[in-house]
């Protein structure tokens, strides 16, 4: 019986070549599935940003704040498809001097990233491009959402959409081409190392947002005539904290999507520079990074809930650049410092520089993004980076910072300056006072709830009714002063 089955079984046994073909297909499907699900998880980042910023907004601006996050998807997706991905494929050498035969790592990638190429659509022979593109697209949305929180309650929706398209589909992806790719000139020449995008996503978005904020100016009533800072009460702190927790959850997808999976080759995973790592290595760092960040944020802010959670985000951002090589204990210590840096610089930006960043995005993402890359130069100098095994170094990290600061800040500043000159950057002050939701959408976000007076916290800590303060600031801005500020003090 057995002897009669053996020839049939042998006849069905695949050849080595057939097994190799099947394993290669299986590996490609695994990669395709992996990136698809990282994209799903990363959606939570945007759910979280919407909740986080919506909670931080005053009731009169909730819908406009949320709509900004939603429409980020509407504008960054097509712009990234039509030219953002092409920039990543073709500008890794700085300028596409090799034309469509692209540089070091992936020959032909430049041409394949053009929207008219066969790779940029349904293609039975390409399992990777679509999902890899999507993962990068989600990073692009993230850069827009980072800026989004800083500018709430006074920026025009359309101005924000123009700025976020430039940030998400030109600025960040250009820096990713230079310093977050295996063929980027900063990587191949200077060993620039930013494994999980401390600087290339967070730092750059923060610097871009800072440039925008300088032209946008503070919200009406944010500062007293003496330049002291008032606080506006967000309408729902619970929503803000829940939003931050959703962002943290999405960050696991973000972290995973930063790796390249290659299941048939030891050790199975590569970082974005194609240096070996593991998913477990970065899982250590992100988790302990949150722990350290919360701790640093808690102590630096003396227990402020908003800054404790923002500290968690800052802590992770501070260790992301070296997440593939840091020991967990080192990540813990560095992330504590990151949480503290965010709180301190956030206060400095608000109170000393008098820049009204509504959610501390410049401090959390911008400052800690640059800080994280600097830390790699100090604590991970000497680790080989990329396919050329160029050693990472303090000088190489500084080179990246010097390249990315103007690349990010200048477009944000210049484009917002142009929009300001065209009177298209900021909503009219009358609309800002009344709230953007009624003007933009003709509705209140909570129509069934009774309206209560808006509360503002004066620099000395007194809580006062907001209306007189805001009206006085409005009248002063229009050239006339009037009633004393603070007449609506609460008992």
């Amino acid at each position, binding site marked *: 019986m057995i002897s009669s089955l053996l020839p049939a079984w042998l006849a069905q046994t695949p050849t080595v070549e057939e097994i190799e073909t099947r394993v290669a297909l299986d590996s490609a499907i695994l990669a395709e599935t992996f990136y698809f699900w990282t994209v799903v998880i990363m959606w939570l980042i945007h759910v979280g940003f919407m909740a986080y910023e919506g909670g931080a907004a005053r009731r009169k601006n909730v819908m406009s704040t949320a709509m900004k996050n939603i429409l980020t998807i509407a504008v960054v997706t097509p712009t990234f498809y039509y030219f953002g991905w092409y920039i990543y494929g073709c500008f890794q050498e700085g300028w596409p001097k090799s034309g469509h035969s692209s540089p070091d790592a992936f020959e032909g990638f430049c041409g394949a990233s053009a929207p008219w190429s066969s790779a940029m659509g349904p*293609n039975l022979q390409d399992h990777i491009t679509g999902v890899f593109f999507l993962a990068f697209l989600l990073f692009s949305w993230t850069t827009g959402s980072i800026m989004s929180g800083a500018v709430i309650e006074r920026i*025009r929706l359309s101005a924000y959409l123009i700025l976020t398209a430039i940030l998400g589909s030109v600025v960040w992806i250009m820096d990713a081409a230079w310093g977050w790719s295996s063929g980027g000139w900063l990587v191949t020449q200077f060993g620039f190392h930013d494994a999980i995008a401390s600087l290339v996503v967070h730092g750059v978005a923060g610097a871009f947002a800072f440039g925008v904020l300088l032209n946008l100016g503070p919200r009406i009533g944010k500062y007293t005539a003496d330049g002291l800072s008032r606080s506006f009460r967000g309408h729902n702190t619970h929503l803000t904290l829940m939003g931050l927790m959703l962002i943290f959850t999405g960050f696991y997808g973000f972290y995973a999507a930063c790796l390249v999976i290659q299941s048939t080759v030891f050790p199975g995973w590569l970082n974005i520079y194609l240096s070996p790592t593991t998913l477990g290595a970065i899982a250590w760092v992100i988790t302990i990074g949150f722990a350290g960040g919360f701790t640093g944020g808690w102590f630096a802010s003396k227990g402020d809930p908003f800054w404790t959670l923002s500290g968690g985000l800052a802590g992770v951002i501070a260790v992301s650049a070296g997440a593939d090589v840091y020991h967990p204990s080192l990540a813990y210590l560095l992330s504590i410092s990151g949480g503290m840096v965010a709180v301190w610089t956030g206060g400095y930006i608000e109170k000393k520089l008098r820049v009204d960043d509504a959610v501390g995005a410049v401090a959390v993402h911008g400052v800690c993004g640059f800080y994280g890359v600097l830390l790699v130069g100090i604590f991970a100098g000497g680790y080989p980076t990329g396919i050329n095994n160029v050693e990472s170094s303090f000088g190489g990290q500084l080179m990246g910072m010097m390249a990315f600061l103007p690349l990010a800040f200048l477009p944000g500043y210049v484009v917002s300056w142009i929009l300001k000159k065209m009177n298209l950057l900021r909503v*009219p002050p009358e609309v800002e006072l009344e709230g953007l939701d009624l003007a933009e959408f003709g509705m209140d976000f909570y129509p069934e709830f009774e309206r209560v007076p808006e509360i503002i916290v004066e620099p000395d800590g007194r809580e006062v009714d907001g209306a007189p303060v805001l009206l006085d600031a409005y009248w002063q801005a229009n050239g006339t002063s009037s009633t004393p500020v603070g007449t609506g003090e609460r008992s």
Partner: protein
Amino acid sequence: MFDAFPYDSWLTPDGALNEEIAEFWTYGGGGSTGTWILTVLGFAVMLVSFWGFVILENRKLTHQADRLKASGALDRPAAG
């Protein structure tokens, strides 16, 4: 109807799918006239949408600001 497609000719001798089938299932194929037309149309719609976002919002904001000014709700109280 599917039987009319030349499935057999899409298979190479070793049984792997060839480029022809990939082309068939990809609209127009890379760099084809169809793909170029779609790309240009999509790009144009994207640009128009930006223009629309600006114009529509500006109309709404101007209207509401004018209405608020006309209502006198934000006027400074008279001295005394």
